[in-house]
């Protein structure tokens, strides 16, 4: 094991790196949610704009924003991002500043964010297979949500915050220590990219 690689691996388990990545990804999610929320409000203000193909239409006529999946709970999904991501940003910033949150708090954050990730991937699945229109901001949310989830899980397993039984916690901690989580997340994101370029490659390169 070469020294720089070892240093890199130590850095990866440090709070600065974990919460820095979490902060960065949560900010990306927040920006994307904001853009999508503004779009949704504009569409709601002007149904005529919403229900027509505008001359400035480039990629699609807003069919993603107008699908029932885009308002699963009766309001634009992006609002959920506006509510949840600032909390993650707060956790990340406070932790960077040295705050240690109680175990139950981090566990609760993990549970809620896991639901968020499941929802994000359900939306990805819907837009990929059922709506069919490309939505770059939605894709950004899928990726950044995955990164937040990965960092949150990383820190919670490292610090044993999840109330897991010993025989589950121990191997998980070992895998994290052996950096297998990086491998899994990398493979996951690359598979996502492969799916997107396979489906939309024609439009991305032309």
């Amino acid at each position, binding site marked *: 094991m070469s020294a720089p690689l070892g240093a890199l691996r130590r850095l990866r388990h440090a709070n600065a790196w974990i919460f820095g990545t979490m902060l960065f990804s949560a900010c990306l999610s927040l920006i994307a949610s904001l853009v999508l929320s503004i779009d949704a409000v504009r569409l709601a203000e002007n149904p005529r704009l919403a229900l027509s*193909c505008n001359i400035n239409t480039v*990629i699609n006529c807003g069919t993603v924003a107008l699908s029932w999946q885009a308002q699963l709970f009766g309001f634009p999904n992006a609002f959920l991002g506006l509510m949840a991501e600032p909390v993650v940003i707060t956790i990340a910033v406070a932790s960077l500043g040295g705050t240690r949150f109680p175990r139950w708090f981090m566990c609760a954050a993990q549970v809620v964010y896991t639901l968020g990730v499941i929802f994000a991937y359900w939306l990805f699945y819907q837009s990929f297979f059922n709506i069919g229109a490309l939505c770059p901001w939605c894709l950004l949310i899928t990726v950044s949500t995955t990164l937040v989830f990965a960092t949150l899980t990383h820190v919670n397993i490292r610090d044993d915050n999840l109330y897991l039984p010993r025989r589950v916690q121990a191997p998980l901690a070992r895998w994290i220590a*052996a950096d297998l989580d990086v491998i899994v997340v*990398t493979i996951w994101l*690359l598979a996502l990219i492969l799916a997107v370029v396979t489906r939309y*490659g024609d439009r991305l*390169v*032309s």
Partner: protein
Amino acid sequence: MASPAGKWVNRVGKKPAESAEMRKGKAAIAGARSPARWPLIVGGVVIVGLLVAIVATLVVSANKEKPEPISTSGPMVVPTGATTGGALVSGKADAPVRLEVYLDYMCPYCGQFERANGEEIARLVGAGTVRLETYPLAFLDEASSGTQYSTRAANAAATVSDRAADKFIAFNNSLFAHQPAEGGEGLTDDAIASLARDAGVPAEVTDAFGDRTFVPWVADSTKKAFAGGLQGTPTVKIDGVQFTGDLYKAGPLTEAINQAAK
């Protein structure tokens, strides 16, 4: 001392208590001794494989045969009976109501509008109440993966209006009944021709779709429509005034037309 016996003792013998931090750090650094080395190798191979697949997919789609862009230059041929504003006309010239419809055959909302109101419009035109002026625009060519469905469909509509005018509405409604998904490949020229034949258009007319005779005219009327302040499609006007009622269910438009016919 690295005798086999010594090793054995090290393995089974209780090590001095280590702090959790130390163990974590050691485990992280001691990748070489960790039993979890093979997943790293397998993972690395999978990652390289995925990267290769991504690059290959991008290269393949970049090199894929792209249909030649349809030229919009060339002599401008105006379909028989078309207005100077760029609309195809159906129905009696002395019909009391003039209905203008701006559409793009790729526009999903135009599809919703036509599927809700197409039959009513056909009926009102047939009854002599409405003179229909259809603007077949082509501004969503980007949304059909390079096949320029908007332009091809609009050219076909103009060809039908030019040479088999009484079949225009049936063909128009059929194009929307079989509207392709936005962002897909659009319908092929053959599929468009087959819809036209099913709508009663003679084969010698559908054979002319491939000549792209009216493409320059379609491009010109698209430009004119948007230069004239059109915002998007569908836009529907009754006697020159924009209809602001619900476009997406049958009824309100018919009512407004009947009102205007009085």
